[in-house]
Each structure stands twice: as C-alpha cells, then as structure tokens.
C-alpha cells in the first residue's frame, strides 16, 4: 500500500518534471531552430508565474500536458477573455475566469472537502473513543496549534470570534501555496490581485475589530491627539503625526500582500530557472541544477507553510494591536 503510493508519487513527479517545460515550449510555439545560430530561447518562466486564460491539464499523450482555454479560443495558441469587461461604478472590471481564479476555486473546494471530512471524522471519533484518530487528529493538531498558540495569545481576550476568519485565511493560503507546487498547478497566491485582496480583507477586519473594541477611541489610532502635550505643541504634532499614523495603517496590509506575492513568485522563478538550466546544460553537468532544483523545491514546500503561517500570525498581531491600542 505504502510502497505503491510512493511509486505513484515518484512517477507523477517524474512526469511533471518532464512535462511542465515541454508543455510550456509546446504552447508558446518556439521559433524554428535555424542552423548555425544559437538555439532560440523559450520563456518557460513568465507563463508559469503570470495569470492566463489557459489551464494546464494532464494528458495521456506526450508531452502529457495540454492547455485548455477557459475563455474564447481565438486561434490555436490564443485565448481571449470569456466575457466583455463590465463597468461597475466607473471601474472597468474583467470578470472572466482565469487560471488563478480556477486554482483558487479548486483550492477552496479542496480545503472545504478536507476540513469538513476531517471535522466529521473528528466528531465521529470523539463520540466513539473520546478522541480523534489519524487524519482528523492531524487536522485537529494544526487547528489547535493555530488557535491556541498563534491566534488567541495575539488577538487577546475574547478573541474566539476571530478564530474562524484567521483559520480560514491560514488554510486557504496554505492550500493555494501548495497547489502551486503540484504538477499542472498554478500559484494563485503568486498573483498580486489575490494577495492584495486577502490583505484588504485583513485590513478591514483589523479596522472593524478596532472600532468594535475601542468605540470612539478608535479615532486615536488615526488622528494623533496627545492630550499630555500643551496646545501649541499638540496641533503641530497632530498635523505631522496623523499622516504617519494613516500611512502606518496602510503599510501593514501592503506588506502582507507584497510578502506573500513576492515569496511565492520568487520561489517559482528560482525553481523554474534551475529546471531550465537542466535542459540548457543537457549533459552530465545537469545533475547540479537538478539537485539544486530538488533542494529549492523542498524549501518551497516549507515556504508554502511558512508564508501561510506568517500571514495568519501577522493578521492576529495586527488585530491584537488595534484592540488594545492606547486610548
């Protein structure tokens, strides 16, 4: 059972390692090699880290991957937006589904199924033997660690209301990160639109938490009005410090968005560059980039967990900060 599973994993990894660059080459129609001149270069990195209307799916025939257009197919290698951009309140928005939207949806469905199944198993086991077993116990360990060691200590007292939001954030980002590492996957969290939206949601949650916790005292987190200063100092300080406070407020979600986006994108660029080097060398020396690619891939696996954890941790810290900010 375990051996066959491992074999399957190795086989799929092998197929993926071969198929991704080949598929990319196939899709982007490399210029025909002209004898005598250096071989034409094909960009395998940009299509991988940017969004598109193509979806990469497994295929039975070499190169074991093919691209499926999820928009309107214009020609063989051109795919346009499915819908015309709509204008909402003066802003033109293209609501057509893209690769990253599909990946996000997949991540959401995957994480829902996994967590709901685990929760059901957890309930069943708790009824039967008093404690969860197997996979449910693992999920419970993760949830409990995030809840008891990360969220509740940082959010502060009565922080139970924030637990579902922060846990959802954690598991969603984690799943999206991990989906970027599996064959045929794409990293939705390597898209600045996705990370920015998650950061904006976090920002809104943080500010609403501050308003609810502090009432009118929330204004003091925007406007600097220090009553300990004499009036002739208070007004200049107000004029100088208030913009600083506001910028400080906006910097936090900005940093969240950029951190997640940059980590995901950078890791993939490095892995793809190393994979590209394997094919560029095309000889015994390819072993070096191959081993490096494996090592960076393992690092990416760690980073996928780390970035989800950091996003959740910082969101908890921001909520905790604003809830007990100075009055």
């Amino acid at each position, binding site marked *: 059972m375990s051996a066959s599973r491992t074999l399957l994993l190795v086989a799929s990894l092998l197929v993926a390692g071969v198929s991704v660059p080949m598929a990319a080459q196939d899709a982007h129609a490399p210029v025909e090699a002209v004898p005598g001149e250096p071989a034409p*270069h094909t*960009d395998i990195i940009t299509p991988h880290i*940017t969004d598109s209307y193509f979806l990469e799916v497994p295929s039975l025939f070499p190169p074991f991957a093919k691209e499926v257009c999820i928009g309107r197919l214009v020609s063989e290698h051109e795919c346009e937006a499915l819908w015309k951009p709509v204008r909402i309140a003066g802003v033109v928005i293209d609501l057509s*589904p*893209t690769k990253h939207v599909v990946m996000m*949806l997949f991540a959401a469905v995957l994480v829902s199924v996994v967590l709901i199944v685990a929760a059901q198993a*957890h309930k069943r086991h708790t009824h039967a033997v008093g404690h969860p077993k197997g996979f449910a116990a693992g999920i419970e360990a993760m949830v409990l660690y995030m809840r008891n060691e990360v969220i509740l200590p940082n959010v502060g007292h009565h922080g139970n209301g924030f637990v*579902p939001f922060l*846990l959802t954030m954690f598991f969603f980002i984690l799943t999206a990160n991990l989906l970027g590492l599996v064959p045929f996957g794409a990293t939705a969290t390597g898209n600045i639109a996705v990370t*920015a939206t998650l950061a904006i949601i976090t920002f809104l949650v943080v500010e609403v938490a501050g308003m609810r916790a502090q009432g009118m005292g929330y204004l003091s987190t925007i406007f600097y009005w220090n009553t300990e200063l004499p009036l002739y100092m208070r007004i200049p300080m107000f004029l100088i410090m208030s913009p600083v406070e506001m910028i400080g407020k906006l910097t936090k979600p900005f940093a969240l968005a950029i951190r997640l986006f940059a980590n995901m994108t950078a890791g993939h660029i490095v892995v793809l560059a190393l994979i590209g080097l394997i094919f560029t060398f095309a000889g015994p020396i390819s072993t070096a980039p191959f081993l490096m690619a494996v090592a960076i891939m393992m690092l990416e696996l760690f980073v996928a967990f780390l970035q989800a954890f950091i996003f959740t941790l910082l969101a908890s810290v921001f909520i905790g900060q604003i809830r007990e900010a100075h009055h």
Partner: protein
Amino acid sequence: MRPLLRSSLLVLAMPSLAAAAEGGGKVDLLSPNGGVMFWTLLIFILLLVVLSRFAFKPLIAAVEARENALEAALASAKRDREEAAKLLAEQLANLEAARAEAQRFIAEGRATSEKLKLSMLEETKAAQQELLDRARRDIDGEKSRAIAELRREAVDLALAGAGKLIERNLDDAGNRKLVEDFLASIPATGAKK
C-alpha cells in the same frame, strides 16, 4: 563551453528574454487585475462561511467539549482527593479519641478495681474481726455459763456431800459452816465480766 555560455546568457538576459517571448509585451506582475480581486473576495467569503459553519464550528466545539470534560474531571478528582484527605483526618482524629477513651476506661477500671479490692479487703477484715469477736463473745458466754453451771453443780455436789454429812451429824452446824467457807474461798472466775 557552449552550453555554459548559453545558460549564463539565459540567466543574465532573463527579464528581457521573458519580455521578448511575450511578443514584446511587458511582464507586468504588480498591477492587480480587478476581476481576479473580485473572484478572490467572493471565493474567500464563501470559503469563510462554509468552513466556519461546517468545519471549524464542530471541530472547535468538540475540542472545547473535551477540554471542558477534562477540566471537570480534574476538578472532581481534586475535590475527591480533598474530601478523602478530610475524611482521613477525621478518621485519624476519631481513632485518636477512641484510643484516649480506651486508655481512660482502662485507667478508670484499674482505679475502680483497686478501690474495690481495698474496700473488699476492708470488709473482709471487718467481717473476720466481727466473726472473731462473736466467737470470743460466744466463748466467754459459754465459759461463764459453764462456770455458773459448774458452780451450781459444785453447789449441788457440795449440797449432796453436805446432805450426807448432815445425815450423819444433823446438828453439826460447825461442819456446814466449814463447807460454806470453803466454797466462798474459791475465786469466782466466771464472774469476771
């Protein structure tokens, strides 16, 4: 040499090559797409609702129930232990009291028996004394009665002797007086009391 040169060129020229491969278009990573933002928002909110309703709520409820059960078990164990300790102390105190009482009983019994022994001894002695006295009194009475009897007998004997004498010399008053004098000369031991 050639592959190495090629690869270093590739690495160095990566950004421009990337741009070139896209048909001259710039690779724009930092401008967010409004549509993707909208979908992210929608997907995240749906996920939040679904997960908090169907995954985290039962999970955390179960965990909290277990935590509460554990806490209750701990509290009850502590209570039981305290109760047991209290009972033990009570038991020990009872035992101590019982022992002290037993000791007191023993001492009391010993004192009582001592007293009883003494009084019984006293009583016995008194009874013995009384018995002795009575015996002595009886003996004395008997003795005086025997003496009196003896004396009466002696008188009778003397009288009988005297009668014989008198039969011989009836008028011999001088003889009678002789006997009388003799009798009077015997000391009256029975009349000691």
